[in-house]
């Protein structure tokens, strides 16, 4: 696994975009993308949590699960660690920086059920990334998530002012907008260094 860090980052952010190509975190992608401001806040919170979660998951995997031959337990361990971690991050922010907490607070609990977090942790194990590579891949994925959700929110703010055929209002038009974005992101597939 001699992939350069830049390539890992770009793969996560653009080529293999977590939402549009891998379909992880669709629930919040469709649910929270009503306006740009909230989407951007959620995006920042996701970058924060995935960054920490992929670091912790990588350490746990390398120093606890693998030495004791417990790799088959990784799903259980990761989901519990992520749930606990989100809570710890929330409490930590509440005490240390109320400003950030106020901006991110309501989005943090949403992230536990965001399958992108667990997905990144599991992908990192599958790809046999080391600690640094895991963190970079996690951050890349989270940046990709943020790009996708902010772009979709921008589209939805425009769409709201248009007169749509009735059957397409609500979920269908959001899914179709996501389809066009997904086609655009497929174009990154040729990118390599």
């Amino acid at each position, binding site marked *: 696994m001699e992939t350069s860090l830049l390539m890992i980052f770009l793969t996560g952010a653009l080529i293999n975009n977590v939402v549009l190509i891998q379909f992880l975190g669709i629930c919040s992608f469709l649910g929270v993308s009503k306006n740009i401001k909230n989407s951007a806040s959620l995006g920042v919170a996701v970058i924060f949590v995935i960054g920490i979660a992929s670091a912790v998951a990588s350490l746990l995997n390398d120093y606890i699960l693998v030495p004791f031959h417990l790799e088959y337990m990784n*799903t259980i361990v990761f989901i519990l660690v992520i749930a606990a971690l989100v809570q710890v991050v929330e409490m930590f922010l509440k005490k240390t920086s109320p400003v950030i907490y106020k901006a991110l607070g309501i989005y943090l609990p949403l992230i536990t059920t965001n399958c992108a977090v667990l997905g990144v942790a599991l992908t990192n194990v599958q790809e046999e990334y080391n600690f640094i590579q895991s963190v970079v891949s996690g951050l890349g994925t989270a940046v990709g998530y943020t790009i996708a959700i902010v772009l979709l929110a921008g589209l939805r703010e425009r769409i709201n002012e248009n007169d749509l055929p009735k059957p397409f209002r609500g979920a269908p038009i959001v899914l179709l907008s996501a389809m066009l974005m997904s086609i655009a992101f497929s174009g990154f597939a040729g990118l390599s260094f």
Partner: protein
Amino acid sequence: MNGYLERIYNGVVKENPTIVLMLGMCPTLAVTTSAINGVGMGLSTLAVLIFSNLIISIMRNIIPDEVRLPAYIVIVATLVTIVDLIMQAYTPGLYASLGIYIPLIVVNCIILGRAEAYANKHTPMLALFDGIGMGLGFTIALVVIGAVREIVGAGKFFGMTILPESVPPIAIIARAPGAFLVIGVLIAVLNALSIKTAANKKVNGGCDGACASCSSDCDSNGEEAAK
């Protein structure tokens, strides 16, 4: 017996998790590149859902209310690991094509959603049938979407070529963008026929509600765990 049949009807038609509630969208979009993948994903989720509903319902008076969500997560994650290992051993081909989406059944909102909304309030038999109904509803939706994408995208149905050579397959339907397209159009068609779906049931209530309830659950769960 009526109550049990009603549960199955409820899961398949009235509250179909995919079309009506818009829960579990990640696997719905990701694995429906072919009908057989839809069957595999649907049945694995069905198995986890039946046993998680059953176990949670049996243990509903034993698990203290404050720590119920972490307990549910452990039960679900254990069942998913069992399914994961079984599929790895007996259906390696399917396991390879579903990949990471098998362990991700843990974070499928349908499962925790049913545990919280139904299984922890009802008797084991009812919960079991609720699991069967919801699981079947999910499976049917996945198979239908998978079949459409396979026929249009590859000209095949369950791996058999059914379209003549003169009809070129539209490859993009089988790739990532096709998933959004097929589900979006499917919901629009159901809307046009004014069948109750997530979209015309108050602005997107299903997905939002599901995420909100899941997240508030996880919120309280964490707080309780922290105490």
